[in-house]
């Protein structure tokens, strides 16, 4: 199961990074959101994976590690604040600049010779 968990984190990181590298603001915001899921899962797992363990004192003798949980809890909330900020920034950017490219301007494309793709 550890392998599966790590793979999930890896997939989220990959998808997040790919989206962050896109040229328009909205996919970048999605990428950041995805990346913060991955980061939260990663930080959470530093307390190791524990199935069916108690989160509240007095109910069991085995407890899940509370410290990463507390850290991740605030990370989720702050992550939301940051996502919100980036979203509004991108709206403001589009309103002020007239486009939603991350560089603030759409690059002028050089004309390319159309290659015929044979299928």
């Amino acid at each position, binding site marked *: *199961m550890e392998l599966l968990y790590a793979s999930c984190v890896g997939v989220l990181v990959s998808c997040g990074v790919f989206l962050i590298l896109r040229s328009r603001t909205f996919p970048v915001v999605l990428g950041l*959101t995805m990346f913060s899921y991955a980061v939260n899962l990663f930080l959470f797992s530093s307390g190791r994976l*524990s199935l069916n363990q108690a989160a509240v004192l007095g109910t069991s003798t085995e407890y899940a590690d509370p410290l990463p949980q507390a850290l991740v809890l*605030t990370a989720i909330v702050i992550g939301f604040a940051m996502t919100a900020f980036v979203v509004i920034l991108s709206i403001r950017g589009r*309103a002020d600049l007239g486009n939603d490219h991350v560089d603030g301007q759409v690059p002028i494309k050089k004309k390319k010779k159309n290659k015929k793709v044979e299928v």
Partner: protein
Amino acid sequence: MTLLWIPLLSLLGSIISSMTGKLTRNQSTGLTMLMPLIALLITISLAPAVFAGEVLRYTISWIPLLGIDIAFRLDGLALLFVFMILVIGILVIFYARYYLSNNDSMPKLYAYLMLFMTAMLGIVMSNNVIQLWFFWELTSISSFLLISYWWQKSEARKGAIMALIITGGGGLALLAGLLLLGNIVGSYNLDVILASRGIIQAHDWYEVTLILILLGAFTKSAQFPFHFWLPHAMAAPTPVSAYLHSATMVKAGVFLLARFYPALAGTDTWFIIVSLTGLTTLLFGAYVALFKHDLKGLLAYSTISHLGLITLLFGLDTKLAAVAAIFHIINHATFKASLFMATGIIDHETGTRDMRKLNGMWRFMPYTATLAMVAAASMAGVPLLNGFLSKEMFFAETLHQQLLGSMSWLIPVLATIAGALAVAYSARFIHDVFFNGDPIDLPKQPSEPPRYMRVPIEILVALCLLVGIFPNFIVNDILKAAAFSVLGGYVPEFKVALWHGFNLPLLMSGIAVSGGLLLYTQRRYLFRFQASLPTLNAKKAYDNSLNKMIKWCQHKIISIENGSLQRYLMLMFVVVLIFAGGPLFEMSQLGGEKQLTPIDVHNAVGAALLMIGAISTVIWYRTRVVSLLMISVVGLMVSVAFTRFSAPDLALTQLTVEVVTIILLMLALFFLPQHSPKESSSMRVLRDLGISGALGIVIASICYALITRPLDSISEFFLANAKTGGGGTNVVNVILVDFRGFDTLGEICVLGIAALGIYKLLVNLPLFIPTSDSEGRPWAKERYPILLASISQSLLPLALLVSFYIFLRGHNMPGGGFIAGLVTAVAFILQYIAHGSKWIAERLTINYRKIIASGIAIALFTGVGSWFFGRPFMTTWFDYFDIPFIGEIELASALVFDVGVYITVVGSTLMILASLGQLTTNEPKEKVNV
């Protein structure tokens, strides 16, 4: 403590004089002179103790772990320099009063001058080498300000920048040298360093350290080949030149030689480098000075030459040479300051400094001429003046060295030649300016300057004469004290006297004087010869290399920083990839010792959903609504994962945040294009896939390596103390509001700041509100469906009740301020969606900004509250109360803190969404209370 007052008073003077803009010129001058005068009195009161051989110290501990103290020290050498800095400083301030025209800002010049004085005092009195370096750099910066005082002139700006680059660069070398020195000795304390001569000179790093420190000294005192900044610094007002180039700035370099003489001198490396640099500079400066037509240019090169002389003396391997060097430091300061001031008068009264125009000034200003002639004679080394005495000593010492082996006789010969050149340029200064026919095309009719403008020169010239005639009476004590600290205890018997009898040095002086006069009278031939030489321009070489460097840097910067954020992000990820992935190759085995858990069906299905959601988001990222739906699947699965792995608090938080995030992104999508255009080339896509894939693999590997190793955590502490110390059984919540409450306070502040930032970003937003979707279908006119409106309204009290319950039980069961706040926010957002912001505004007149502020304030004051009980910030208090009918309940101050968290979260979330949401409605902002 009295020691500290000397630099402190001067710093105070800088502040005071900068505020004298509204006063008259005399008042401003008087106030500025007051502080250094007091400092001078303090110094005089301390002098007897220093003359008696005592070293005064004052230390305040600053960063003891790094060995950095604020430490001052006054020994003989420092005392001599403090005297020079203060006395000449006071005279320069007085002189500047008459020099500056009404258009020049007097407070500005005085403030800079006093700042510079502070820096110089700091250098000579520091007992910690790092502190010494700090003041060293301060002289570079304040001299930059002084040289560029007439900033309107291009040459002033260029000269200032050049001085800053050369002396600042030397300063960096000095820092490196001092750090090495501190490392060798194990202390940055000057006392310790000066006493560790043996350790330093036996160390492998000795040569490197020495060269670095010498680089600092040589750049500062304008030694060849770093001399060229000094003539360009002449663009400064003349009082500044008089101060910087006689007693202070350039003397800081030779001070450094004297300061570290006990620790660094004595080896062949020292003698060879220092003496040869000094000798070259001495000859070069004296030769070039002869050909300068500008009076200040002549003085500048003569300064370079005299500094070379002092450096050469420090490089001769006899004890008396060091004494002679110190003596010449004093003498050069007095005659050079007075010569600069005289030049300033001539410039002031005639409007030019060109010696080809200035002739026959004797007739117009006989009094000033006499003073200048005496000072120039001292510069030439004429008997009865102080310059003669130190020059005699210098000649005598050149005879007593064995520096060049069998060729050592060269040094006295070259010294005599330099002496002759000095006589020649001094003769030119006297004859060309004050005699030699009539003036040519002067901009002004020359006359004597205001009476008091001459006073500083009179004082200095009187000193030249007094020292020259009664040397033992005037300078013996201070010279002995300074030599005592430079030579590290043992001072050879020496006698400064006017008459030593007929001997070789006297003969050398004679040859120098007659040779110099001969050179001057026959200067036509020399000038012609000089004109036939190719011009060697150090400034041009400097300019070229500087331009080349700037171009190179610009080119490099542009090639990396081309303005594309997309590219920066890519580079950052590549760097992360290298630094995070690299160490993985050094690990022998990825998996750890921990027993792996088997995969069950639920987990497999959950993981599959999560991965499918993530990959689908990427596949459909151009169709934005679809990708948004897909990412919400991922968020949901993450919260399911938290539930599965025993973290109910996290699951609740993630779930509510997920709702808010998706609503926010939906709103955002309203203002953004619905589709992303196809822009990236196939190569680009391939590259990004490579980077993101590799990064995913690296992070997954790290994650796997982490979770398969046994846990060694500090959490045991929290588990053990949550109930007894924090009064709650939900350890996560107790950590948030109690153990790490200070962190949480910071975090809700971040939340509040983000919300306020968003609010400001949305003010006056020139927004285009689309009337239809991307395919041209108009938006529905009926915005608020009646079904949702009525259901949501009845849901609100229920939702609030739930959130209240979650909040209250938070300390002992999953829940708490964060989660309850989010639940409340979601309940309200539902109302916004169902009814629109106008409807809400009519019913709920709340200013969210105030809510956020009050939330943070509650949390903060809960923390502060513990001070009133004599506890540290944010100590929680709790107790159990037995209330009839309800039973035993627990009250904790952490609960109040959690209220603060709750309010901040509600306020921030609603402010973010309501601010954005109301933009869709075209309504003016005032009506909707965000």
